[in-house]
């Protein structure tokens, strides 16, 4: 059991070879999505997400961020164009296999209320037919990764605070060690202090986990803090992709309101 534990641990801690870094993991090619002929949520999106990076999808509500995310794990199917995950179109993937290859964490968390924390985390490994000892070790491991004490394993979701629930949701998404993580405003509903705490920890976690992460947010500060690149969305189309550094220095029209708003909150601190 001990060796299993350290093996599982090393598998997530080992970083990818440098040559893999630039390999596209997710590609959007001329993707449009619409719910009705007169209601297009996403228009002609082209986007390449590389291995090991954290791409932040930043934009206002209704800008198409969540739609983007759901197109990746095939909760939605493109109306036109193609979304490719590891080179294969999502529509050509076996849908169950695709989704188990991708961790998914959402703002409402969606923990299973009738399962204890442990069972919530263990569900996919169990369905994947892991051995019991391996599952137990993995549950302990991911609880530790997300910073929850071991005794939380036996608690039920209704006995947890919002921040703890979000941590369990992240632990559940990490359970089967998927190489890709999709996160839809995971910290959006938390109080500011808990949010800052989790963001800080997540920042450290990113380097350790070395996963390809697509992260939806409307919070500029969060995007700058956690992103390796920021994709700015507005009313269903991509406005541009920036590194955090380029983003704050950009004079592009769609960017400036975000940076101004962010600067304003910073100024208050400096006074």
């Amino acid at each position, binding site marked *: 059991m001990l060796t299993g534990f350290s093996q599982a641990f090393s598998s997530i801690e080992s970083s990818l070879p440098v040559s893999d870094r630039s390999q596209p993991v997710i590609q959007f090619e001329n993707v449009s999505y619409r719910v009705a002929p007169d209601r297009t949520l996403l228009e002609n999106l082209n986007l390449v997400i590389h291995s090991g990076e954290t791409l932040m999808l930043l934009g206002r509500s209704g800008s198409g961020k969540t739609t983007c995310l759901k197109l990746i794990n095939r909760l939605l199917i493109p109306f036109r164009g193609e979304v490719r995950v590891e080179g294969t179109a999502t529509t050509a993937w076996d849908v169950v296999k695709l*989704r188990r290859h991708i961790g*998914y964490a*959402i703002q409402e*968390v*969606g923990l*299973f209320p009738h399962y204890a924390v442990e069972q919530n985390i263990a569900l996919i490994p169990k369905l994947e037919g892991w051995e019991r000892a391996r599952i137990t070790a993995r549950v302990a491991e991911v609880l530790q990764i997300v910073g929850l004490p071991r005794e939380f394993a036996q608690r039920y979701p*209704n006995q947890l605070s919002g921040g703890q629930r979000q941590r369990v949701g992240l632990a559940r*998404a990490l359970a089967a060690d998927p190489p890709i993580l999709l996160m839809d405003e995971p910290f959006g509903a938390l109080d500011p202090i808990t949010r800052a705490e989790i963001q800080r920890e997540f920042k450290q976690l990113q380097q350790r986990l070395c996963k390809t992460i697509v992260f939806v947010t409307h919070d500029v500060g969060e995007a700058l803090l956690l992103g390796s690149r920021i994709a700015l969305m507005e009313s269903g189309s991509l406005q541009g992709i920036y590194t955090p550094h380029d983003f704050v220095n950009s004079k592009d029209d769609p960017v400036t309101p975000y940076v101004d708003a962010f600067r304003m909150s910073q100024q208050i601190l400096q006074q």
Partner: protein
Amino acid sequence: MLEFIVNHRREVATLTAEHLWLVTVSMTLAILIGVPLGILLTRRPALKAVILGTTNVIQTIPSLALFGLLLPLPWLGVRADRLTITALVLYALLPIVRNTYIGIAGVDAPVREAAEGMGMTSRELLWHIELPLAAPVILTGVRVATVITIGVATIAAAIGAGGLGEFIFRGLAMVDTHVILAGAVPAALMALLADSALGLLQSFIQRRTH
């Protein structure tokens, strides 16, 4: 009335056992048909109007008339117990089908989204998430259906299928309240007992599923 029951205790016991048998068989069949039908509705919403509509209409047919309507049918009309069980199953369907559907449809959207997003198959979703979470609501439907069935089963005596209705019809014919009550009181007690037993089961499940 007590005197009558004590004097006829063997007959009361036999008719109670008959009644219980009719109800048990009917409810078992109704659950075996109703729950899968309810699940089907959550997977094929197009069928909702047809199935819920049909079970709804059946429920509005007066019970005595339903027995009469089934009488001319070839295989059913031959034996009173077959006919009775069919009628009872038809009556019990609506609450079971409806509550199964409502229970599953009522599973929180984020819970469903998380389950689908993490790659559960439709069957895994059903067994691990939907049915456990819908169980209290489904059980409410079973409770309602059981109480209805115990009541309607008294009419079975009208077509000679036995049960506690025997006393009720005999008492009506004899204009003897004691005899009527000898059938009505045990039937009412049975309904109360079944209802509270299922209620206990329900609170047990609810405690487990939160």
